[in-house]
């Protein structure tokens, strides 16, 4: 019996030729990451371990992302604690706001994560790095503390779901829509304790950024990780960034899967996840016309440069709807600077959108766009549970960036025809 990609990566990190789902193994980690929400607790627990130094100062990454720039005194204190720990431990990769951004765009951008490695991240969306076949998974602060001290953790080898995407997508349909459809299909518990392995010709056509979006939201099905094949697009992204040798893996033809899910993308429309579950997914046409109060374009899910470009293309020369406020946050400082150079920031500013530099902000109801009771938002982020972006009665609809930007202009959830009409208008104007 052959092995899945997850089984091969795990075996290579515990000195074994063969591991099987359900086994408990101790693995050597390649990287440990925490942010300004999870690091303070991790540092406190680290201090209780009776260890003076982190296991490897080059392999512990600390990123200010959630409540940055500090939104209040408590968050300033948490950043201060993290900063002092980073100095004391001489951490190589410590990022202040304005110099980094959201960790899940930042670490790939900086070549800090690579294929074939295992990453323990104290943030649920650590799964993102699976787009470049890094077996990256979200953990809590205590696991992070132990990992910072030892460079190891225990894992239960996960069974894998084979998710096969076939067909050719239509215009306006993105990786975001692929993953929303998958979550709609398998549910928010669909991959609990399991890995998702992505297959199919429809994925070859996706940009690496769309694959990041897909791996990112495997978290919403509770997957331990979401792993892509390494192809020429992966190498094109990783090649100039990663300065060390890495391995890539393919599953054996006779690998065993817990389940195979096939999705034909040929007829697919842009998707929307309605409140209050990321699995509450339908064609966007089914929700078109619902009036909204806020649009958020950004987050670790859809804050990449191509996402920002798409939004700008739609908002260029137009005004955010009078009833709506729009918030745009490129995920990292580098993306922000590139957007600035391309004139995209000007497009948003002139359209009446608020633009900020790389932070999680409104995605988790942190800052820069928290929702009041009863308000309704369209967001390119990843979750829409009660209270996720503010008050528990506020409603969040998750979409791709083009649909969110169209919603900002029209003041309502759009259809594909609405987006096409907007763009056509700009051609003829």
């Amino acid at each position, binding site marked *: 019996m052959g092995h899945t990609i997850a089984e091969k990566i795990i075996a290579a990190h515990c000195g074994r030729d063969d591991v099987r789902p359900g086994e408990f193994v101790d693995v050597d980690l390649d990287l440990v990451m925490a942010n300004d929400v999870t690091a303070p*607790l991790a540092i406190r627990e680290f201090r209780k371990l*009776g260890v003076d130094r982190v296991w490897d100062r080059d392999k512990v990454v600390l990123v200010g992302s959630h409540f940055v720039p500090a939104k209040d005194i408590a968050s300033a204190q*948490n950043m201060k604690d993290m900063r002092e720990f980073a100095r004391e431990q001489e951490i190589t990769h410590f990022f202040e706001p304005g110099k980094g951004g959201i960790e899940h765009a930042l670490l790939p951008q900086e070549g800090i994560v690579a294929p074939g490695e295992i990453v323990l991240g104290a943030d*649920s969306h650590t799964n993102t790095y699976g787009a470049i076949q890094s077996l990256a998974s*979200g953990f809590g602060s205590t*696991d992070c503390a132990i990992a910072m001290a030892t460079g190891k953790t225990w894992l239960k080898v996960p069974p894998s779901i084979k998710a096969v995407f076939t067909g050719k997508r239509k215009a306006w349909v993105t990786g975001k829509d692929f993953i929303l459809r998958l979550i709609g299909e398998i549910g*928010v518990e669909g991959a609990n304790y399991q890995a998702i392995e992505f297959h199919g010709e429809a994925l070859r056509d996706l940009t690496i950024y769309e694959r990041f979006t897909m791996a990112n939201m495997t978290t919403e099905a509770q997957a331990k990780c979401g792993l892509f094949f390494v192809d020429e697009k992966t190498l094109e992204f990783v090649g100039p960034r990663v300065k060390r040798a890495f391995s890539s893996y393919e599953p054996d033809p006779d690998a065993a899967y817990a389940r195979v899910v096939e999705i034909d993308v040929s007829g697919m429309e842009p998707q929307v996840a309605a409140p209050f579950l990321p699995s509450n997914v339908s064609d966007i046409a089914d929700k078109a016309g619902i009036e909204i109060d806020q649009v958020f374009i950004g987050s670790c899910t859809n804050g990449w440069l191509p996402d920002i470009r798409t939004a700008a293309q739609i908002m260029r020369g137009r005004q955010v709807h009078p009833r709506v406020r729009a918030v745009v946050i490129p995920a990292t400082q580098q993306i922000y600077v590139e957007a600035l150079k391309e004139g995209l920031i000007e497009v948003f500013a002139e359209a009446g959108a608020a633009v900020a530099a790389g932070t999680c902000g409104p995605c988790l109801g942190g800052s820069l766009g928290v929702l009041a009771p009863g308000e309704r938002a369209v967001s390119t982020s990843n979750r829409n549970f009660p209270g996720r972006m503010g008050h528990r009665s506020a409603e969040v609809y998750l979409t791709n960036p083009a649909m969110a930007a169209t919603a900002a202009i029209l003041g309502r959830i759009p259809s594909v025809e609405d987006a096409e009409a907007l763009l056509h208008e700009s051609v003829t104007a």
Partner: protein
Amino acid sequence: MNIQGRVWKYGDDIDTDVIIPARYLTLTDENELGKHCLEDLDPSFVSKVQPGDVILAGNLFGCGSSREHAPIALKGVGCAAVVARSFARIFLRNSINVGLPAIECPSAYDTAQEGDVLEIDLAAGTVTNTRTGAVHQSAPYPQFMLDVLDAGGLVPFTREKLAAERPGG
């Protein structure tokens, strides 16, 4: 390790955003976090719950973020354990790591009412409802997880282990 506690019963998909909302994530103290536990789900919970009580929940308790503040808040408010039909992967692990037992036991959930008293035997993996007398079997914890819970969490457990590995330790 045995636990006996009165039940507070909730539904499916109780996510970390309602167990402890993001507006409290700047807190790190167990008791402070406990004051806001479940407030977006049941604002009266913190005034009703007594030390030693047990949360009983449906499918996928603790889904959402990796915030360890969630099980810490439950501990802080005095919960002795969480019994659920199922748990989200990260919550289950965080919960055991901070020393809060989390037991997957669908039949215990399906047959219990709020206010029932559950007796939990972690080593045997049994959950007994004292009202109905029914004994529900869950998958027992692996030994190392029992050892982690006995030690009071993963940090004290690892501290002892690292001290023992140290030369002359």
